[in-house]
């Protein structure tokens, strides 16, 4: 039956994420051990593999050592593939539960089990064989070596008959394999480990390819979900194979001044992080971005962990962001989610499903830091990275907001991490001054763009969102009333200086005038003085002549002519 003897041939399980992890499926004609704690999803895994196979025209045998056939069917029925499985005649459940009061006397083997499988398998074509709860059989073996021998016997039987088998067994709470499973993990070529841990009261499931002899596989724990669709493992995106070409096109943010600062907008297919404390208008900016897309006739998907659609739309209308019309035109879709209702893996899966369905050009997640509430910070970081990569791969421009808070270390660390992934990082803040709170915006980074490093004031008004140049004042920046106040202060100061200058000038002119008057006055005094001197000299001369005449009267007649 085998194609080429020893060669490894993989058989797809039909569980997309599992086939992706195992690079194509589980080994055909061999046994795969599925070990996990109680409620980790072992039975569902087996049933789902059968359901997928049967949906594709295959068949299967389900041997249950734990649950009754009715329980198995009820279990299957809770999934959306369950009905088809339960109605199908292409599989058979074998009730292999041991009687409660069964006793042992000496050594026993599993030849009966093998005979049963063989008997059933002969009536199906190429069936999957699922043995659920093999620990129930093995734990009755007094000897560990004998248990291992029996598993080997099973595996050899698989190889001989080309059965592809899933063998599931329970491990303890601490994931330690019980005695009867010790050694089995080493012997079988493929082992899948399922874990379930509780974080903050919620069950988080993980799956790992513990080993896969002869095959490459993805390593590490992958989050696993059990939903109506059964087991779902969010696909890991291979960033090296992202098909979206590098695009030079820029998309507008809806705020012309911001586009200017960003050297023309955001690159299509890139990611933007807007971080800030509560009330810094992160959502408003995000909504503006989404509205701009809808106005360009593109589709925008808005995932909100904070708000409901009706108040969100109403509140934004007050600042001239009108979304209702775009909702009616199916250009804008709003989904309110509650972060704490389910685990991160489920959020991712459902958001990816929304993306696949709506095929948006723009994706907004507001705030992405809320995911930290749905799991550990590390899981949130990985989740955000996966979402952004998923969006990028599809050429979607994504904008995520992140709440920063000194008190919330989890959200803070999400912001820190996302900021390293995002292509553009815009930080919003407050400036408290003069009893006034003003919003500020600064671009911390923008890959591939020359961008302004200046902080701006973010203004929300009836006319929409806008940016205002800040007022530089020494090393500080001024905003709001302070900006206006400072502005008028400077004007007053200038006016005062002008006035002072005018006064000073006037004073100088006055003093010049004064000096000039004095000079005139002094000149006049000088003139008077000169005149007085001349009068006195004449007087003096006259006096001298009269004296001389009196002393020389004889000379008076002769000299009459001189005396005029």
């Amino acid at each position, binding site marked *: 039956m085998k194609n080429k003897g020893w060669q490894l041939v993989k058989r797809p399980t039909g569980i997309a994420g599992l086939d992706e992890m195992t690079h194509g499926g589980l080994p055909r004609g061999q046994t795969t051990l599925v070990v996990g704690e109680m409620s980790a999803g072992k039975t569902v895994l087996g049933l789902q593999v059968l359901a997928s196979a049967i949906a594709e025209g295959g068949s299967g045998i389900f*041997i249950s050592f734990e649950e009754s056939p009715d329980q198995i069917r009820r279990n299957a029925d809770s999934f959306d593939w369950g009905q088809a499985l339960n109605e199908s005649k292409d599989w058979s459940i*074998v*009730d*292999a*539960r*041991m*009687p409660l*009061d*069964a*006793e*042992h*006397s*000496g*050594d*026993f*083997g*599993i*030849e*009966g*089990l093998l*005979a*049963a499988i*063989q*008997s*059933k398998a002969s*009536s199906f074509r190429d069936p999957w064989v699922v043995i659920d709860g093999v620990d129930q*059989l093995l734990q*009755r073996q007094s000897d560990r070596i004998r248990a291992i021998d029996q598993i080997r016997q099973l595996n050899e039987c698989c190889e001989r008959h080309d059965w592809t088998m899933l063998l599931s067994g329970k491990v303890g709470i601490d994931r330690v394999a019980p005695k009867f499973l010790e050694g089995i993990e080493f012997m079988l070529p493929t082992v899948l480990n399922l874990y379930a841990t509780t974080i903050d009261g919620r069950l988080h499931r993980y799956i790992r390819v513990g080993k896969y002899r002869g095959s490459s596989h993805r390593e590490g724990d992958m989050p696993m979900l059990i939903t109506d669709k059964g087991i779902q493992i969010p696909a890991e995106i291979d960033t090296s194979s992202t098909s979206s070409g590098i695009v030079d096109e820029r998309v507008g943010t809806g705020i012309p001044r911001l586009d200017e600062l960003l050297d023309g907008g955001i690159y299509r297919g890139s990611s933007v992080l807007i971080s800030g404390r509560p009330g810094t208008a992160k959502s408003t900016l995000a909504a503006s971005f989404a509205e701009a897309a809808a106005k360009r006739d593109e589709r925008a998907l808005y995932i909100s962990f904070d708000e409901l659609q009706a108040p969100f739309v109403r509140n934004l209308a007050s600042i001239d962001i009108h979304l209702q019309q775009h909702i009616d035109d199916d250009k804008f879709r709003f989904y309110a989610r509650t972060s704490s209702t389910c685990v991160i893996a489920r959020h991712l899966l459902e958001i990816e499903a929304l993306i696949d369905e709506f095929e948006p050009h723009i994706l907004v997640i507001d705030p992405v830091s809320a995911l930290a509430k749905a799991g550990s910070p590390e899981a949130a970081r990985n989740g955000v990275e996966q979402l952004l990569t998923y969006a990028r791969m599809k050429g979607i421009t994504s904008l995520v907001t992140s709440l920063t808070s000194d008190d919330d270390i989890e959200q803070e660390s999400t912001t820190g991490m996302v900021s390293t992934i995002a292509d553009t990082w815009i930080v919003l803040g407050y400036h408290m001054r003069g009893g006034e709170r003003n919003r500020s915006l600064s671009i911390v980074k923008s890959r591939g763009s020359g961008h302004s490093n200046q902080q701006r004031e973010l203004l929300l008004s009836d006319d929409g969102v806008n940016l205002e140049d800040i007022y530089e004042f020494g090393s500080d920046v001024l905003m709001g009333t302070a900006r206006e106040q400072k502005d008028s202060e400077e004007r007053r100061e200038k006016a005062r200086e002008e006035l002072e200058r005018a006064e000073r000038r006037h004073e100088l002119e006055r003093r010049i005038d004064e000096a000039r008057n004095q000079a005139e006055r002094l000149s006049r005094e000088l003139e008077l003085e000169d005149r007085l001197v001349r009068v006195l000299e004449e007087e003096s001369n006259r006096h001298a002549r009269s004296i001389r005449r009196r002393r020389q009267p004889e000379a008076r007649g002769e000299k009459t002519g001189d005396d005029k």
Partner: protein
Amino acid sequence: MNEEISRPESPVPRLMLFVTGDAPRSVRARKNLSGALDKLELDEVTPMEIDLLDQPEQTVAYSVFATPALLRTDALGEMSVLYGDLSDEDKLHDFLQNLPEASD
């Protein structure tokens, strides 16, 4: 597969030994059982032997997946089972106590 038809006709034998051919454990189980019946002076009891290699469908019919296995039916039709090669004599003797009157 109709499991009812494959069951032996009643009356149900008091003892059934499920074996798989001449596997060492099966051989030992046969030997241990007949030894015990001798010892307990239950010569009139003839266990019905079912070889699962020949009749694999009987594994499902009787839910016997571990072999060898000794199945006992009491007067009310209740079945109990003893797994193993029956090498634990005490357990085997206990199991064979108070067998119902022969009906076969």
